[in-house]
């Protein structure tokens, strides 16, 4: 290994470590919420960054590193769902039981009734705060599809709340 290789490797490691520090917590929370039933979120996060290291050459091409990371995490989570490595308690079971406003409980119920694709898109927007472009990158769908999914989800939620 010559010196330029070492320097490049060091720079790459530093940038990936920076990504880990910047987005690791959000990714961990996303993985636990979305795929925590099927696998340990820490394992999924580790696997995500293994994939990041393997595909680090694409990092420079990514328009949004955050969306790129979420995209990889989503793929890792979906693979875990297919493999069903371990079973963890449901996400809801982890949350402390507090008295909720009735309208929040109704909204939660309405969200749970949404199709997976609609719920996932809405969660990426409202919970993770990704832009439409970033959601399109994560889900590998056109931005128009993101927009239409969000609008459909909003309409269904409104209709459910009006009942």
């Amino acid at each position, binding site marked *: 290994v010559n010196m330029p290789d070492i320097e490049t490797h060091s720079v790459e490691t530093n940038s990936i470590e920076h990504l880990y520090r910047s987005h690791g*917590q959000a990714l961990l*929370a996303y993985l636990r919420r979305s795929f925590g039933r099927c696998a340990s979120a820490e394992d999924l996060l580790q696997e995500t960054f293994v994939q990041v290291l393997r595909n680090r050459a694409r990092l420079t091409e990514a328009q949004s590193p955050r969306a790129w990371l979420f995209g990889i995490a989503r793929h890792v989570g979906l693979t875990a769902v297919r493999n069903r490595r371990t079973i963890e308690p449901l996400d809801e079971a982890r949350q402390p039981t507090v008295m909720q406003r009735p309208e929040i409980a109704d909204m939660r119920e309405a969200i749970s009734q949404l199709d997976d694709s609609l719920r996932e898109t809405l969660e990426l*927007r409202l919970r993770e705060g990704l832009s439409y472009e970033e959601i399109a990158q994560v889900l590998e769908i056109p931005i128009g599809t993101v927009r239409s999914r969000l609008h459909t989800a*909003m309409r269904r*939620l409104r209709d459910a709340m009006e009942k």
Partner: protein
Amino acid sequence: MNMDDTTLERLMMDEALGALSPDVSMLLAAYTQTTGDARVAQWRRVANLAGEAMGETHLEPLPAFPGQAPRQARMWNMARLGLAAAAVLAVGIGIGSWMPSKPAANVSVAQAPVETPRRSMGVSDFWSSQRLLASAMESAPRAPSRPQWTWSMIEARTGGLR
């Protein structure tokens, strides 16, 4: 100016989801204010409730970055290597001080053969008794100080028994 209602509603949903740029948001707000459309508030409420229902992202402490563990292990290995080297050095010094000192090396100096000056016989006659005696003394070993007498010498000295 009338806007298409479907487009307007989409814009309202995008605004409620926080996806509009500030300029477009301002234009939309100005437009809905003039028309008195209450749907903007309705969509905002749906979006806010949905956000609350999903719950805030609970950030957990991160596990150590994978690269940190090998780095720490490498530092620990280097420290152990240094300690091991110091221990080996200390044991070596200890053994060296415990062992008896080495005897001085035997330096053998090759001595040049001593040239013994040939004695001058001081005799003129070749077969004289003095010469024979001197020759015998010269050839005899030097260790015994006393000359070893042989019959021939006695005969030579005494001039023979006969």
